[in-house]
């Protein structure tokens, strides 16, 4: 069963924003924990099994401790001190914040796995332009350019091999990186110029004067609104529960 089937690509983004942004208001275990629990419980109903959540979510599982450690070391020192060296103070407060941020990183990151799906860039572009009414030409430009990513990756492979073939791949990493970055920028400008000509050859330049029609309609259905409403309710409720229980900490400072 997939409750998220057939929703507009835009709903996926808006839902993500609604579900996770309010959580940023507080650094506490309760608000983050409630939201995280919801995400994990609902995931299998949205086509993402727990196994898949773990497999796809490993960057987030890695990011959580990486966010917690600096917090534990450098969070505002309050309460009992457990360890101290140079600028680092491991205290009651910093440990509490570290635990909270650990859970929050998961709460903010894992919904991405659930809400993401293989979205066609053209469909996403349709949604951004027709539903969110973002500037048409920019959306279309971004979608067309996104298609070039795989071509650029091939270019990068070719450039790396070329440097190896010419005897200059053994040099310093920074220098190597810079020549690759530069080469990539030149190639991108070339491809971009050709793409612009190709798009103008299909009358893209007329869009500025008199707009355009859309071959595929993109709109929001009842399901889209429900998904977004649920996301908002969950995040607000998470914060509400934290406030009620007394663990709410505004931006981690209060």
């Amino acid at each position, binding site marked *: 069963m997939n409750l998220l089937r057939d929703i507009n690509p835009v709903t996926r983004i808006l839902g993500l924003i609604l579900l996770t942004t309010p959580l940023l208001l507080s650094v506490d275990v309760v608000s983050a924990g409630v939201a995280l629990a919801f995400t994990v419980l609902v995931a299998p109903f949205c086509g993402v099994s727990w196994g898949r959540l773990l497999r796809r979510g490993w960057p987030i599982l890695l990011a959580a401790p990486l966010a917690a450690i600096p917090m534990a070391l450098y969070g505002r020192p309050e309460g009992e001190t457990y360890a101290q060296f140079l600028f680092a103070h491991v205290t009651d407060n910093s440990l509490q914040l570290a635990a909270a941020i650990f859970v929050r990183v998961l709460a903010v990151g894992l919904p991405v796995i659930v809400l993401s799906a293989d979205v*066609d*860039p*053209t469909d996403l572009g349709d949604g951004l332009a027709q539903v969110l009414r973002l500037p048409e030409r920019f959306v279309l430009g971004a*979608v*067309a350019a996104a*298609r070039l990513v*795989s*071509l650029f990756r091939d*270019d990068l492979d*070719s*450039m790396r*091999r*070329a*440097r*190896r*073939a*010419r*005897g*200059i*791949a*053994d040099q310093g990493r920074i220098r190597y990186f810079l*020549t690759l970055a530069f*080469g990539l920028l*030149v*190639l991108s400008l*070339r*491809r971009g110029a*050709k*793409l612009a*000509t*190709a*798009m*103008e*050859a*299909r*009358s*893209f*330049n*007329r*869009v500025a004067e*008199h*707009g*355009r*029609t*859309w*071959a*595929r*309609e993109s709109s929001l259905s009842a399901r889209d609104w429900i998904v977004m409403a649920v996301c908002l309710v969950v995040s607000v409720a998470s914060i509400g529960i934290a406030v009620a229980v007394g663990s709410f900490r505004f931006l981690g400072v209060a």
Partner: protein
Amino acid sequence: MAPLVEARGLGWRHASRIHPALTGIDLIVQRGERILLTGDSGAGKSTLLAALAGLLGDEEDGDQAGTLTVRGTVGMVLQDPDSQVISSRIGDDVAFGCENLRVPRDEIWPRVRRALNLVGLDLPLDHPTRYLSGGQKQRLALAGVIAMGAELILLDEPTANLDPAGQTEIVEAVEAVVAETGAALIVVEHRPHLWRAMMDRFLRLESGTTGTAGTAGGSGGGGSARLVETTADDLPSLPVLPAAPGVPAGTRSLVEARELQTIWGPPRTLDLPAGCSTVLTGPNGAGKSTLALTLAGLLPPEGGRLHYAEDLRQGLRKAPHAWTSRQLADRIGYVFQDPEHQFVARTVGEEMAVSGGDPDRIDELMTRLRLAHLAEANPFTLSGGEKRRLSVATALVNAPTLVVLDEPTFGQDPGTFTELVGLVRQLTADGVTVLSITHDEAYRHALGDHEVVIR
């Protein structure tokens, strides 16, 4: 009835150049006329087409002289198949132009289906564009043009980046399209023999002076281009080159591959005879590049045996893919399909010196490849032919024993072609072993001492 295109005294100068690309062009095109436009590289053919398509830009980009009236929708198909694909699904790609012209939604999809039918692309509308071959991509662009209802179809060297199969595909598609829609047609081409049969008129754009040294403005000095009416018999023909002499009896193998397993394709068995030119041919997607990269030590093999003669290994025991970059450059040179992938320096001179070669050899190579006068120029500002020569020169700097070229004639004009063939012949005369990946029939004929066919 008023002509479709009327140009009188048309001229155009790019803002960043000193000399105009076009001056004093007079041209009248009637509805349904089919014109083949030939001319030297850099003479301004692409600029003329861009002018007809209304793509030259505004006053920020340059100055226009004379008048140009176009009475109808114009569509253009460009040279590079990859750069013209706009959407990830073929239906959406064809619909793109219609959307921009404000065609109502219920009219768009019938037009899309008709256009795809006309060009012979019998694929579902959501077929991914990235799985299309070069020829299919060109036909897709053509479909996009027809769906817009173009009354004038312009094609700028449509076959330059295609293999022979793709070339036939696009020519047939254009023929079908023009017959059905009655649109006028202007094709710019270096392979005029493909289009001869269907054309009514033949024009040639002659530059006023021959191209001079490449500076920031690129090759092609000043002087006005003239549009000259010519006939079907006066078309530039392919250069006739002597056939390859074949491999002399008893030649040893420089490289032996036995059941070599690369990361793509079945195991291969082949030999590269020393001091000869071998061509590697086969259909697109068969794995020619992967094989060449593996033989050149740029990709690790997955299995099988790969043996290199001592004069290639020069004392090294490990396999080439484990050699360091410097060791590799001293033994095997690789010329990539896109020269720009290889450039790392700011001037041509620095480019040659970057791998630490002998200065005398650098000078000699630059003179031999006619790059000496470009020593201070930025590599990216060179013309196509000059870039190709530079990429070959940099591969030769460390005096490698084996040189591999990946589609060296791709997208090049006939002049550069002859030059390249001469260059490779000279290399084999000097004892260097050469391997070329190519689908160019003429190249095969002239340089196919030994041929390896891949399926």
